[in-house]
C-alpha cells in the first residue's frame, strides 16, 4: 500500500493545532491547512460519525474564512453590496438570522458558497471556505468596490468550533448564559460562552444534524480552554473530537455541497440543484444574467444521488456510464455511508438519466459497477414536531 504523508512545511495552522497533535489526531493537508482528519486514539472516523448522528461531536473549523461587510456613510450600502455578490436575498434576513448562499462569477458558476449572517442593521458576516479564502476575499473586495461599504477580513480573528449532534444544545447550554432552546436553525445570538462575553453562537453546521458554531478569540490559550471545556461538558453524552473525515461523510449523507466537488467555477447553480437559495426575483446580482440564459438554454447535467447496488465504492472523479454503456458523467463525492451501511455518491449526469430508480454504472478500477439513482438527501434527521414558522432544514453549507 502507499502511505500518504502531508509535507510539514508551510501549512497553515489553526490555533488548536497543538491540541489536535497532542490528542493524537492524524493530520492532513486540506487546502493548504494542517488539519485533523480523524482522532484514532478516541475511536477514529466511524466512531466520530456515529457520535454526531447519535449524540454529539466537536470540530475545529477555524480554517473557514470570515468576511465582515459594514455600511460606510450611506444607509443600506452593505446590503446593496451583499445583494450584488450573493445569490440569496439578504433583504429577507432579520438581524440575528443567517442563510446559505453563493457568490457567482458572471457566468453563473461558483466563486464559493457562503453563509451570510446579518449582524446588525447594515452589518453582515460572510463565512467562506478555507481553500478559497484568499480568492474569495480579493473577489469580494473587487466586486464591492463600487458600494459604500467597508470590507474586513476577520478570518484570523476567530477560532471557530462546531458542536454538532442531537445533544449539542445540552452541551453548549452548560457553558453559556444565552438561552439556546428558542434559537431556531440558521439563527444566531450573542452570549457568554466559557466566560467569554459577547460570543457569536450560530445554530448552523455542516453535518445534517442540529448543532452550533461558535466564534471565539483566536489566541491559542483561549481556544484550547473552550475546546477542552466543550469536551468536558459533553463527556456524559460520549462526545468525541471529530476530524475532516467524519465532516465529509456527514455532509455527504446530508447532500451538502463541497467546493471543488459538487460546486466549482465550471458548474452553475441550476446544475448543482441549489435553485432554492438563488433568488432571481430579488433584482440584479452577479451571475444572474448568465443564469437566465442557462435556464432558457436548458440543462445538460444535473446533480444526483447514487447508491451502489453491486460491490464497490464510488470515489471522487470516477466515471459514470448509462445502462446502454455510454459515458454520461462523473462522481463528485463518493464514500461508504456509515449511517446507511451502503456505498453512496453524488454525480453529475444528464437530466434524462436522473430519475430515482434509474440504473447506471460507476467505473471502479476498470470495472463497471452497478448503481442506481436515489432520492436525496441520503440522510435526513428525524425532527421533533417543528415549531411553527421554523426555517426549513434544507440549507447547505461548507
Amino acid at each position: 500500500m502507499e502511505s500518504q504523508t502531508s509535507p510539514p512545511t508551510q501549512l497553515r495552522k489553526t490555533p488548536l493545532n497543538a491540541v489536535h497533535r497532542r490528542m493524537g489526531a492524524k493530520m492532513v493537508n486540506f487546502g493548504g491547512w494542517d488539519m485533523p482528519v480523524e482522532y484514532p486514539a478516541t475511536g477514529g472516523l466511524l466512531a466520530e460519525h456515529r457520535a454526531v448522528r447519535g449524540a454529539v461531536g466537536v470540530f475545529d473549523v477555524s480554517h473557514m474564512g470570515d468576511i465582515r461587510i459594514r455600511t460606510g456613510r450611506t444607509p443600506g450600502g452593505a446590503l446593496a453590496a451583499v445583494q450584488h455578490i450573493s445569490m440569496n436575498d439578504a433583504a429577507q434576513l432579520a438581524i440575528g438570522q443567517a442563510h446559505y448562499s453563493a457568490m457567482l462569477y458572471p457566468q453563473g458558476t461558483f466563486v464559493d458558497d457562503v453563509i451570510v449572517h446579518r449582524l446588525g442593521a447594515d452589518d453582515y458576516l460572510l463565512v467562506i471556505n478555507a481553500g478559497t479564502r484568499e480568492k474569495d476575499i480579493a473577489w469580494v473586495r473587487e466586486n464591492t468596490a463600487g458600494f459604500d461599504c467597508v470590507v474586513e477580513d476577520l478570518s484570523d480573528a476567530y477560532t471557530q468550533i462546531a458542536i454538532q449532534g442531537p445533544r449539542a444544545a445540552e452541551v453548549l447550554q452548560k457553558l453559556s448564559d444565552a438561552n439556546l432552546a428558542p434559537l431556531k436553525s440558521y439563527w444566531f445570538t450573542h452570549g457568554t460562552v466559557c466566560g467569554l462575553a459577547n460570543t457569536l453562537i450560530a445554530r448552523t453546521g455542516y453535518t445534517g444534524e442540529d448543532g452550533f458554531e461558535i466564534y471565539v478569540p483566536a489566541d491559542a490559550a483561549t481556544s484550547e480552554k473552550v475546546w477542552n471545556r466543550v469536551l468536558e461538558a459533553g463527556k456524559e453524552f460520549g462526545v468525541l473530537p471529530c476530524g475532516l473525515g467524519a465532516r465529509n461523510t456527514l455532509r455527504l449523507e446530508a447532500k451538502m455541497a463541497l467546493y471543488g466537488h459538487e460546486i466549482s467555477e465550471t458548474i452553475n447553480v441550476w446544475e448543482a440543484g441549489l435553485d432554492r437559495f438563488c433568488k432571481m426575483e430579488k433584482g440584479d446580482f452577479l451571475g444572474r444574467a448568465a443564469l437566465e440564459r442557462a435556464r432558457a438554454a436548458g440543462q445538460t447535467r444535473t446533480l444526483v444521488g447514487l447508491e451502489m447496488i453491486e460491490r464497490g465504492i464510488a470515489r471522487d472523479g470516477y466515471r459514470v456510464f448509462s445502462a446502454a454503456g455510454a459515458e454520461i458523467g462523473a462522481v463528485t463525492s463518493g464514500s461508504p455511508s456509515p449511517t446507511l451501511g451502503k456505498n453512496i455518491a453524488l454525480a453529475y449526469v444528464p437530466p434524462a438519466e436522473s430519475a430515482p430508480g434509474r440504473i447506471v454504472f460507476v467505473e471502479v478500477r476498470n470495472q463497471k459497477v452497478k448503481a442506481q439513482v436515489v432520492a436525496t438527501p441520503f440522510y435526513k434527521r428525524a425532527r421533533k414536531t417543528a415549531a411553527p414558522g421554523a426555517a426549513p432544514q434544507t440549507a447547505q453549507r461548507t
Partner: protein
Amino acid sequence: MAYPPQYRYTKEHEWIQVQGELATIGITDYAQQELGDVVFVELPKAGARIETGKSFGTVESVKAVSEIYAPAAGEVVEANAALGEAPEKINADPHGAAWLIKVRLANPAELNGLMDAAAYEAYIAAKAKEH
C-alpha cells in the same frame, strides 16, 4: 503492535511470511493505522499470478483507496475469504487473522531484498518523524 521477527517487510507496508514454498501476505499495522477504518477489500482469486512490485488488490477505508503491492512473484493459492464479510478485521489483527493471500512463490530468493522487523520499525519511525 509488535512486528513479528519471522516476517519480511516492504517499503509499501506489506508483510510476507514464508513457510516452505508457500508464503502469506498481508498489510502492516502501520498501514492499517494510516488507512483508518477498513471497509472494503478486493483480492485476486486462487490461480491468479502476482508480480513483484505490481498491485494485486486494494484495501479501502472510509476515506481512501490503497493499492496493495506484491512483495514477491507467485501464484495465488488462497485469498482470505473472511475479509469479504468482515474487512474491519484488518484494523484489529493485520499481522494475524487478517492476512490477505497465500501464494506459491516463483523465486523465494526474492525475499532477501526485503526488510526484517528491526529495519522496518526503523523505517516507519523515520516516517513518523516527517509528520
